């Protein structure tokens, strides 16, 4: 079961160079303050996403898509709808995974790795990436976006990720893209579209029972 979470974690990896069109931000205080302010006023996020796994050596891609939901403080629902059905719900210290016909629950309190993965996901949505002690974070900016590049510090995270890149829109500080790189060079990006902020989201969406 832990393989699911570890594998999910492996998706999130990043390298130390900035993407094209971005320059390094030396003083990140302004970004941190801005993200904290946005986080205060953000209660829910919902969006569609398109995920593409890039297999470098195979020169091929695997596409999938679904729905993403976040509810303050610590609830996330990632629902794949095509080409397969898969549901991942994080709620506090609990994670629920539902695939074809089976539901599994995981208590992250029993595993440091799972706690870390859970925290990464939450930090990306709450704008608290800079506070994550498992990663060193570098900031870059373009005209319209911030790029937060998370490089794992501890050995367990290093085994799971090469790096995680979080792209944020400057206009509303929402995550627009996540790029999760593996050590072998493959990477997965998730592009978020049709974002809706502070709409009513039922707690039932985040049920892990």
């Amino acid at each position, binding site marked *: 079961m832990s393989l699911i979470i570890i*594998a999910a974690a492996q998706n999130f990896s990043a390298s130390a160079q900035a993407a094209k069109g971005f320059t390094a931000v030396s003083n990140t205080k302004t970004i941190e303050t801005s993200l904290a302010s946005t986080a205060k006023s953000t209660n829910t996020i919902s969006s569609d996403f398109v995920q593409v796994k890039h297999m470098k050596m195979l020169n091929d891609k695997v596409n999938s898509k679904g729905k993403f939901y976040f509810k303050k403080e610590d609830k996330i629902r*990632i629902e794949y709808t095509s080409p397969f059905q898969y549901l991942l719900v994080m709620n506090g210290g609990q994670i629920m995974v539902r695939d074809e016909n089976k539901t599994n629950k995981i208590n992250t309190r029993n595993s440091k790795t799972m706690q870390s993965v859970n925290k990464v996901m939450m930090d990306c949505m709450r704008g608290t990436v800079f506070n994550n002690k498992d990663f060193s974070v570098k900031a870059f900016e373009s005209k319209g976006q911030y790029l937060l590049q998370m490089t794992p510090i501890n050995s367990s995270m290093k085994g799971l990720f090469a790096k995680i890149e979080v792209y944020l829109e400057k206009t509303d500080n929402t995550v627009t893209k996540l790029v999760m790189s593996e050590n072998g060079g493959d990477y997965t990006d998730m592009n978020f579209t049709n974002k809706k902020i502070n709409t009513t989201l039922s707690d039932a969406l985040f049920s892990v029972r």
Partner: protein
Amino acid sequence: MRYFLFVSLSFFLLSCNKKIYQNSQEIQLSQSLTAADLKPKFEKELYRGVIDGKFGLKKFHFSGVLYMKNFGDTATRVVFQSEMGSTFFDFGWDHKDSFIVYSIMEQMNKPALIKTLKKDFEMLLVKNMAKQPKGIYNFDRNTRENYIKFDLEKGFVYYIADISRNIIAIENADESKKVVVMKMSPVAPFGQLADKISIKHLLAGFTIDLKKIKQDVAE
């Protein structure tokens, strides 16, 4: 008492030696059949994979996406990744069917597990088999199923086919016990992979269920 022990021991030894495939009748097909005929031919295939099992007292369950790609007649890659994209394992075979582990996540990097998965895929993709089957057998005249036998390094594999040249199942066994049973649904013509493949590891106690995904594999 001594007589009782002798009888018990005899029964035990006899039961150990009991063959699981009995009353075989070797048959000759009207058309010749080689491993190349059975080998699935595809450019790439995508399957939803669900794995269930038990290790000691602990149950495990996980799922992902299985990606298989053939590079002409030269090589094959099999990549199993989580729904979120991270790689569980990435295996390959070169033009001589030599096996390569390109990557495998630490938690799965166990020689016994790699050997088991390698054997599964080699049976499914008909790799490292002799050019000709060792024999073709029928065990039950009523079913008219042909058991196409290839020897493996340990034990053997039967490709079980109907008279219309469809693969119904694949069984790996030795003389006394079945080890792996793969069932195809629906049955797949020779040279094709079935839409649903259910793999049961009878001794290791885990199952792999594969269901073909027919979209969203993009260049």
